[in-house]
C-alpha cells in the first residue's frame, strides 16, 4: 500500500482522528511554554548540536573509549552491524543466562530491529513495561509515535483492551478515568518485574568518558527493568554517544522540553557496569549491544545530520501531515519528518512507496528541532534521488517535464498561461476538480498585458 492510500485511510478513521486531536494541545503548546520559559534554549541547542557533530566526526575514537570504560566497569559491549546480528546477539545472551521471562523498557532501536517479536519467536516471555508500549503489545501493533507509542488510541480503546487482556479481574470494574487504567497496568506490570530473569532497556545517551548509559523515562519502568533482574541488556545505536556528562546534561535539558514540555524527565538514570560488592541492587551481568544498521554509512553524507537526532518527537508533533494522519501511515517505526529523513537513508527501498511526498516543506520541524537538523533539506535530497530513479506517478512526472520545457521558453510559456486562463474562464467546469474550484483569472496573464 502506498503512503497516499494509508494516509487516506487514516483521514477516514474517526477514532484515530479523535486521538490525534490531542497532539497540538498536548505537545505543541507544552513545548512552546517550556521553551519560552527557558532563556538558554538557543545557546544550549547550539552547544548540543555542535557537541554531537564533533562526536560524529570522530565516532570510532569515542566508541572505543566508551567500550573500554564500560568493560572496565564490568559490562560486556557487543557491536552489531545489522538488525539480524543484534537480534542474534541478544537471543544468545538470554539463552546462555538461562533466562525465560524478560521485561523490556521502551526503545526505538528495539522497534527498529523488531526485537520483541524475535524474542517471542525464540520462546522468551517478553513484557513491554512502558505503559504505551504495553498497550500496543496487547493490541499487536507497532508504535505510532517515537515517544508516545499509543498516541493513536483513545482511552475507550485502551479500556477495552485491558478488559480483554486482564481477564482475571472483575469485568465490571471502574475504568472510567486514566488513573484507573494506570493503576491497573501498574499492578499487572509489578508482578512481571518481580518475576523477570532479564531486563532490556534502551539508552538516550552513551557517555564515553565513563562507559555509562543514560536513560530517561517518566514512569520509572526502565529503572525496574535495569535493577530488579540479575541480567541487564542495553540496546543502543552507535550515534547515541556523547563525550561526557556535560554533553549528556545538555541533551537532557533539550530532550524533555522538546518532547513533552517538561523541564526534565521524571526519571533520569545512569547505568555504569554491574553491581559492585558494596551495592544492594543492580544487575550481576550487563551487556551493551551497539547497533549500526546502516548508520556508519551515513557519515560524510548530508544524511549524517540524522545521526544527531535525539528522538524527542518535536518534529512529529509540529508536522501538519503527522498531525493529520498519525504515525502508522508512514509504514515504519520512524514516522513524521525525522522518519522521512531517516528511513530512506537507512534503507533505499523506503523511497518507493511515496512517504517522502508526505511533507509540505513548511519548515516547522527544522524550526523546533533541538539538534538543528535541516529536515526539509534532507527530505528534498531524498526526493531528488527518487526522481532520478524514476519513482512517482507517470502523470506527475510528465507534468513536471512539460512545465520544465515551457518554463525555459518564455514565448511558449505565455501562450500556455494565456490559453489556460482562457479555458478556465470559458469552461467553468474545468475549474472543478477533486474538491476544489479554481478561481478563473481576471483577464490575461500579467506578463502578457505588461508592456515594458
Amino acid at each position, binding site marked *: 500500500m502506498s503512503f497516499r492510500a494509508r494516509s487516506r485511510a487514516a483521514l477516514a478513521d474517526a477514532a484515530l482522528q479523535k486521538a490525534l486531536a490531542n497532539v497540538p494541545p498536548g505537545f505543541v503548546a507544552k513545548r512552546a511554554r517550556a521553551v519560552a520559559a527557558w532563556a538558554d534554549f538557543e545557546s544550549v541547542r547550539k552547544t548540543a548540536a555542535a557537541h554531537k557533530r564533533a562526536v560524529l566526526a570522530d565516532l570510532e575514537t569515542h566508541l572505543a573509549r566508551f567500550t573500554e570504560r564500560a568493560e572496565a566497569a564490568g559490562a560486556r559491549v557487543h557491536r552489531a552491524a545489522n538488525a539480524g546480528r543484534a537480534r542474534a546477539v541478544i537471543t544468545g545472551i538470554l539463552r546462555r543466562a538461562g533466562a525465560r521471562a524478560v521485561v523490556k523498557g521502551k526503545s526505538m532501536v528495539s522497534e527498529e530491529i523488531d526485537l520483541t517479536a524475535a524474542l517471542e519467536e525464540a520462546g522468551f516471555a517478553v513484557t513491554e513495561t512502558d505503559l504505551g508500549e504495553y498497550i500496543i503489545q496487547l493490541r499487536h501493533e507497532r508504535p505510532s509515535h517515537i515517544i508516545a507509542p499509543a498516541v493513536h488510541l483513545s482511552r475507550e480503546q485502551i479500556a477495552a483492551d485491558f478488559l480483554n487482556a486482564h481477564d482475571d479481574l472483575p469485568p465490571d470494574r471502574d475504568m472510567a478515568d486514566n488513573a484507573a487504567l494506570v493503576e491497573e497496568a501498574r499492578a499487572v506490570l509489578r508482578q512481571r518485574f518481580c518475576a523477570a530473569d532479564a531486563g532490556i532497556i534502551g539508552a538516550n545517551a552513551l557517555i564515553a568518558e565513563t562507559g555509562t548509559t543514560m536513560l530517561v523515562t517518566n514512569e520509572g519502568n526502565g529503572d525496574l527493568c535495569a535493577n530488579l533482574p540479575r541480567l541487564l541488556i542495553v540496546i543502543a545505536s552507535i550515534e547515541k554517544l556523547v563525550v561526557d556528562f556535560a554533553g549528556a546534561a545538555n541533551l537532557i535539558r533539550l530532550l524533555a522540553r522538546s518532547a513533552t514540555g517538561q523541564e526534565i524527565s521524571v526519571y533520569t538514570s545512569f547505568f555504569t557496569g554491574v553491581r559492585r560488592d558494596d551495592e544492594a541492587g543492580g544487575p550481576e551481568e550487563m551487556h551493551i549491544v551497539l547497533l549500526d544498521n546502516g548508520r556508519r554509512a551515513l557519515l560524510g553524507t548530508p544524511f549524517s545530520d540524522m545521526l544527531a537526532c535525539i528522538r524527542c518527537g518535536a518534529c512529529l508533533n509540529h508536522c*501538519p501531515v503527522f498531525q493529520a494522519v498519525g504515525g502508522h501511515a508512514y509504514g515504519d517505526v520512524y514516522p513524521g519528518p525525522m522518519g522521512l529523513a531517516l528511513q530512506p537513508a537507512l534503507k533505499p527501498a523506503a523511497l518507493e512507496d511515496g512517504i517522502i511526498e508526505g511533507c509540505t516543506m513548511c519548515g516547522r520541524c527544522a524550526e523546533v528541532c533541538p539538534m538543528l537538523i535541516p529536515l526539509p533539506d534532507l527530505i528534498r535530497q531524498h*526526493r531528488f534521488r527518487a526522481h532520478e530513479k524514476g519513482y512517482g506517478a507517470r502523470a506527475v512526472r510528465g507534468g513536471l517535464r512539460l512545465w520544465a520545457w515551457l*518554463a525555459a521558453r518564455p514565448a511558449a510559456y505565455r501562450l500556455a498561461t494565456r490559453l489556460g486562463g482562457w479555458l478556465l474562464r470559458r469552461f467553468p467546469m474545468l475549474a472543478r476538480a477533486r474538491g476544489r474550484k*479554481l478561481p478563473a483569472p481576471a483577464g490575461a496573464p500579467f506578463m502578457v498585458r505588461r508592456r515594458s
Partner: protein
Amino acid sequence: MSSRLDTPRRVGLLVTCLMDAMRPAAAFATVRLLEAAGFTVDVPRAQTCCGQPGYNGADEQTARALARRVMEMFADHEAVIVPSGSCAGMLIHHYPKLCAPGTAEHAAAALAAKTSELCAFLHRHDVQPLEKRWRGGKVVWHDSCASLRESSTAEAARAVLGKIDGLDLMEAAEAESCCGFGGLFAVKLPELSLELADRKIAALMATGADIVCGPDPGCLLHLESRIRARDLPLRVMHVAELLAGEAPS
C-alpha cells in the same frame, strides 16, 4: 528607515508564476504600489517561474536551470522584489544551496542579498499604502510558512498594513501551521492537502473574518479553490491588492 542614498530607484520585479497567470490583478497592484512610492519597476520579459515546483517536487536539474535564468535576468538590478513569501525564500535561501561552490555560487549569493519579499521591501523603505482608510470588512491574516521562516515578511507585513486606518488585522489560531498547499504536495496527496486546507479555513473563519489576506499567491490560490468549492463566505486578497486599494475576489 533608510536614507535616500541607499534607496534603489529602479527595482526588478519577479512577478511569480502563480500571480502572473492566476492573479494578475495582484501583480498590477504590486507595480502600482512601487511606482507610487517613486520606484521605477522593471519586469524582465523572459521570466516564467522561480523553479520551486522542481526544487520541492523532485527535479533538481530543472530547478537549477531556472535558478540560473533568474540569476541572469536580474544580474544588473540593484534590488529584486518578489510578491510571494515562498518564491522570495527560494531566491534568498535555496538558490545558494542549488549552486555548489565553483558553479554560480557568487551570482546566487548576490541575488539573495538584494532580493526582498514585497512587504519586507515596503517596510524597509517606509512605503505608504495607497489604501488610506479601510472600509472593506474584517480581515484575518494568513502568514505563509515561507513568509514566517524564510522571507522576514511576518512582522513587516503587519507593520505596513498597520498604516491603514480602520484596518484591524485579526490573527487566527494555529497561525504557524501550514495550510497544506506545498506546491506539488497538493497534486500528489490531494486528500491530505484538502484536509489541511479545511483545518486552516476553519481556524480562519473562527475569527469571524470576511476576508483572508496573505503574502503568498500559492496559499491563497489553494485556500480560495477550497473556499469556492465549499461555497463559504470568506473572500481572499493578496496583501498587494489590499495595500493598493483593490476589491477582494
